[in-house]
């Protein structure tokens, strides 16, 4: 089964970085979804994404102190942490949810995170 990752991106940073992802191995199995800000990312949205069969959810937004909306990234960080706790408590690998902070030029960083996450998922979902 293909392990798909939903990549939720802040439109101010990560979405632009995601647009420049190169190489088929990065584009394959990745669904990119735009958000106005990762501060919009709700815990339940992450869980519902997993419910739909996605192996992982990667939320990518601006660096904490450079969020266009001041506290969106820091709110997202806390919610992702909470989601991981919930998953852990439910016996589901917390590695299935992850957050990255990057700016629009950080495609390489995003690529690295995706690769790493794919590997981790490989490890915990087999």
């Amino acid at each position: 089964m293909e392990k798909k990752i939903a990549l939720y991106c802040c439109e101010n940073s990560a979405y632009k970085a995601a647009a420049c992802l190169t190489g088929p191995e990065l584009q394959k199995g990745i669904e990119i979804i735009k958000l106005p800000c990762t501060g919009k990312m709700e815990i339940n949205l992450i869980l519902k994404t997993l419910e739909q069969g996605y192996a992982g959810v990667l939320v990518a937004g601006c660096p904490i102190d450079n969020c266009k909306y001041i506290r969106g990234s820091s709110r997202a960080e806390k919610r992702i942490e909470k989601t991981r706790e919930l998953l852990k408590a439910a016996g589901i690998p917390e590695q299935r949810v992850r957050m990255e902070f990057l700016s629009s030029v950080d495609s390489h960083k995003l690529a690295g995170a995706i690769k790493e996450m794919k590997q981790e998922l490989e490890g915990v979902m087999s």
Partner: protein
Amino acid sequence: MNRESIGVIICSCSGRNLGKQEIDSITQRLSFAESGIRNMIIETALCGEDTLKSLRNEVEKKGISSLIIAGCGAARISGVTEKIADALSFAPSSILGVPLFYSEGAESEKNKLGINEARVDKAVRGISRGMNVLTSQEPLEIEEIPVVQRALVIGGGAAGIYTADALNRFGHETVLVEKKDSLSDYGIDEKKLKDLEGVIIHTGSSLVSLEGSKGNFSACVKTPGGLEEYQAGAVVIASGAPVPADPKKYLQNRFGSSSAVPLFSLATAYSGLPRIPSLRRIGILLDLDRDEGRASTQMALHAAQEIQKPNAAEVFLFLRDARVGSLHLEELYDAVRDMGVTIVKYSGEAKISSLETGLQVTVQDDGLGVLTDYTCDLLGISPFGCAAEEDDPLSEITGVHLDDYGQFQDNNIQLMPVETNIPGIFTAGGGRGEVYSPKVKQEALAAAGEVHFLLKNKTLHLERSEAQVDPDKCILCLTCIRCCPHGAMHVNREDGVAECSTAACQRCGICAGECPAKAISLPVWTDEIVLNQL
């Protein structure tokens, strides 16, 4: 929105986009019957002026009221959609950009007239997803908010005066509020003050409250003659730098020694020292609690120059990073160094301890790479490097955030230099840490420009895409009001529910993410729409 009124534009410009065969393949796969897409437009050079004209005709002819634009990478597509929305007078939410992700080497593949299936697949899915998004959303209303034709400038120092002057020249009614009793206290010359003719000036006054949002603020100003109410379309905070009120006393108390003096009175203090046979050691310290800018560097270099000149002292200049990127500053820096001033660049914190006579400065010397002690008979410290003793009350009144240094607006790359977290409130000068006068003037002009840009449209046309509160679900837990970074949420006392201001809302969705009753949604970004993209 119904499918008939949605148009799909695929750009086939000469950028690194899709090849002809690929576009054919895409249009084929987006067959009318299946997806209901009726209006397919293939354009070359989507962003060209001529294209826009023909596009307008086509859109009118086909009765298209919303668009999916597939083209360019994500970095550019938002700019393109904005431009097209503007040209066609479409509401922002009725145009959706679908970036066509390309891979490296796309150029050469295109020339081969081949088909990159993965790319085609992506485009097809992107466009279908866009259809789902547009069909699942209702067209949003446009709200017209008259812009109050008045600007309010808080602070009558250099930044405030330049801002008010510029606004005056733009022809906007401007109210200037200054704490001190006279504007001339700042050493602004008569001529400049004369330029302010027409500006309503309240000296000895302060802002007491500020409500409302972009385009329509209402301010209460405490003046010697009593409270004055003003409506204003925009506000500029030009309060001074958050330095200690009495730097001399502050430094003396903080370091328990009269050998620590404010940099601007270093020369006087130095000349007051009794002569001794050996050389005096004089220190100058920048960046004490926060990194400082060019103004401080300039002041420090001048002071060093003046004291080193008689050659009666050994001068040490401690700084974390020399900011000399300006006319003459670089030369001055070199000249000072050539005179024999020891420049110590340090990292981390500078520790200052009081000795029996003089002070000891302990810093991690970047050049030597070790922790080093320097004893000084006198230490001139830049007050601009000192942490603010208390937060600027304007932060509490206006809701504009302070950064870790107590300055307005941290160095957030997402915000234009003079923007703040509250739309319609701008900031310039010392309050945001800039005290170098050419730069202050620049900022003042930029802030005035932003205000002008806002006021020149007598009416704001705002799409009602702000956060929507479902009054049946809202239990007024206040979470959104406490969380909103833009002060856009407030209590509607009549209905007993939270309410969002169309003008202040920045559509970030943080409130929707927090609401424990799920009473808040962001129209263009409902869960349904987001999940539809999967």
